[in-house]
């Protein structure tokens, strides 16, 4: 058996997995009956439907010929990991990690961290350029979000301002 469309095959797999998971999860809640639907009824229905659609997609991916095999292609690990890492680090800087006693470093430090890590995801990384970009974004965000929009942020590290 040859996979004729990789993209469809894995999409189908995803639909089946998610559908099954939701349907299985729904059985933990009260299903109820048509006239009195419990919290499990609708998700169970949808989950089964999604799993069926997934199965059909997989079937199609194995049967219907495509010109180039619709390959998924390589995964861009570098941008994927740096973008997500920059996001996570920003969150940690902003809120700290109370569970392990890591203090909040505030918005400004967070912006510098985010911009530097995110910039590593690109093709070229020029330290000076990134520094300027981070500074511009830090000042801009401070003016726009803290001054003008008065949104509530921890701006400075908590161990300095207390």
């Amino acid at each position, binding site marked *: 058996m040859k996979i004729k469309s990789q993209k469809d095959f894995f999409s189908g797999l995803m639909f089946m997995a*998610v559908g099954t998971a939701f349907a299985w999860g729904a059985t933990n809640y009260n299903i109820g009956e048509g006239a009195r639907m419990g919290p499990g009824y609708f998700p169970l229905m949808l989950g089964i439907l999604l799993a069926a659609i997934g199965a059909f997609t997989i079937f199609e991916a194995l049967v219907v010929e495509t010109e180039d095999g619709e390959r*998924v292609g390589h995964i861009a690990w570098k941008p994927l990991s740096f973008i997500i890492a920059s996001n*996570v680090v920003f969150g940690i800087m902003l809120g700290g990690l109370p569970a392990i006693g890591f203090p909040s470093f505030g918005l400004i430090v967070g912006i510098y961290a985010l911009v530097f890590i995110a910039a590593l995801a690109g*093709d070229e990384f020029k330290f000076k350029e990134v520094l300027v970009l981070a500074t511009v974004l830090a000042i801009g965000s401070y003016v726009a979000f803290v001054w003008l929009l008065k949104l509530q942020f921890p701006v400075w590290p908590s161990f300095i301002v207390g």
Partner: protein
Amino acid sequence: MDLINNLSIGFGVAFTPINLLYSFIGVLLGTVIGVLPGIGPLATIAMLLPATYALPPISALIMLAGIYYGSQYGGSTTAILVNLPGEASSVVTVLDGYQMARQGRAGPALAAAGIGSFFAGCVGTLMLAAFAAPLTEVAFKFGPAEYFALMVLGLIGAVVLASGSLIKAVGMILLGLLMGLVGTDVNSGVARYSFDVPELTDGIGIVAVAMGIFGYGEIISNLGKHVDEREVFTSKVTGLLPTKEDFKRMIPAILRGTGLGCALGILPGGGALLSAFAAYTLEKKTKLKPGEVPFGKGNIRGVAAPEAANNAGAQASFIPLLTLGIPPNPVMALMVGAMTIHNIQPGPQVMTSNPELFWGLIASMWIGNAMLIILNLPLIGVWVKLLTVPYRWLFPGIVLFCAIGVYSTNNNTWDIWMVGIWGVIGYMFIKLGAEPAPLLLGFILGPMMEENLRRAMLLSRGDWSVFVTRPLSASLLAAAALLIVIVALPTVKRKREEAFVEVD
């Protein structure tokens, strides 16, 4: 006259200096962000949504409407200048618009898009105002069975118009519906699929989903491509205004496009998209005047007509949202999310319980359109400059604004983690060729569908036939079934695939 009366209430609300200012800021921000390459209207609205949190509801809605129009116009600008349609409905604009830009006629193309959109927006607003009241009357006659049937029709409509695989689009909708169910069930109080995480009992935030998929996912996918695969803007823009000849050709095209947009836009699903396609096809069918450039080679009618249709359709798609509370497309789904954040539940009751807000919003749509043309005709040069900003400066900024924006939704880092997770999921969708837009629509409709299904079934005492014995619900479902049958017909299927191929 009721209509004039109502509109004067609306303009009374919207024409205060402070609201005009918010509308202006909204349009400006929407255009600035929307013009940036690789950021579609969905990402733009999601990113700018937090900027409205601090405002009173009316001002916030007015600013949001401004952001919406700005981002739409920004999308057309990138379509014309960089050959990069930000969303499906500007796909046809690319065909002739980009060719015009390559011939150095980007200015007239942008002006045609702007003027076409403005005219269509004016007509669309009038139509919205005229139809809103009678349609709201109808809306009150809608029972839960009708609402459920209408949502089914809307979702099917969205699938039919999605490009690419039908079956995968259906899958994405179901996925969205299921994701929308995460959180506390309103009827039983059971926290579903929340794994004892307190934040998940409130459900997944639509802002986090939209930013993750359309912001982060797109960025990661863009960065994964080689530099030469990314579309960049290179040509020069000279002569911003259309010539007399251009005007003569585009005016009838704009009229035709507007007519089509108003008629088709009200259909649930993707009214704006359908009308843009239909308008382009219609223009192509009309005879070329002597000396006119053929279509696909930079004909100004090929820009003006679909842009007018697109905007009229977008305007008309506010009708089901405002009268029935049902978002007809993903952008509107995001607008529902925005309104809910401001404690406004869109639906027929808004007009009666809060007429100032309702008519103020409608008036602000016209103002938004007017702002757009005032702002854009003189500023085309600036937008063109913005397009030359290198991507390596842009994307860290986008990531930052998404993270800040989503944090300010609840002042909770949980939402930042959610954007990250949805970013990974969004990238996966792109890799698998599964279109994420229907997911967003399903996401908003999930809880609404469940609620109406439950109520309909409760009223019918568990009898499923209620959906086909009530005439209105039966005809809505019949229309949905018809849509599926039509699309599944071999000849139509081929045509549909051809249409999307031609557009690619």
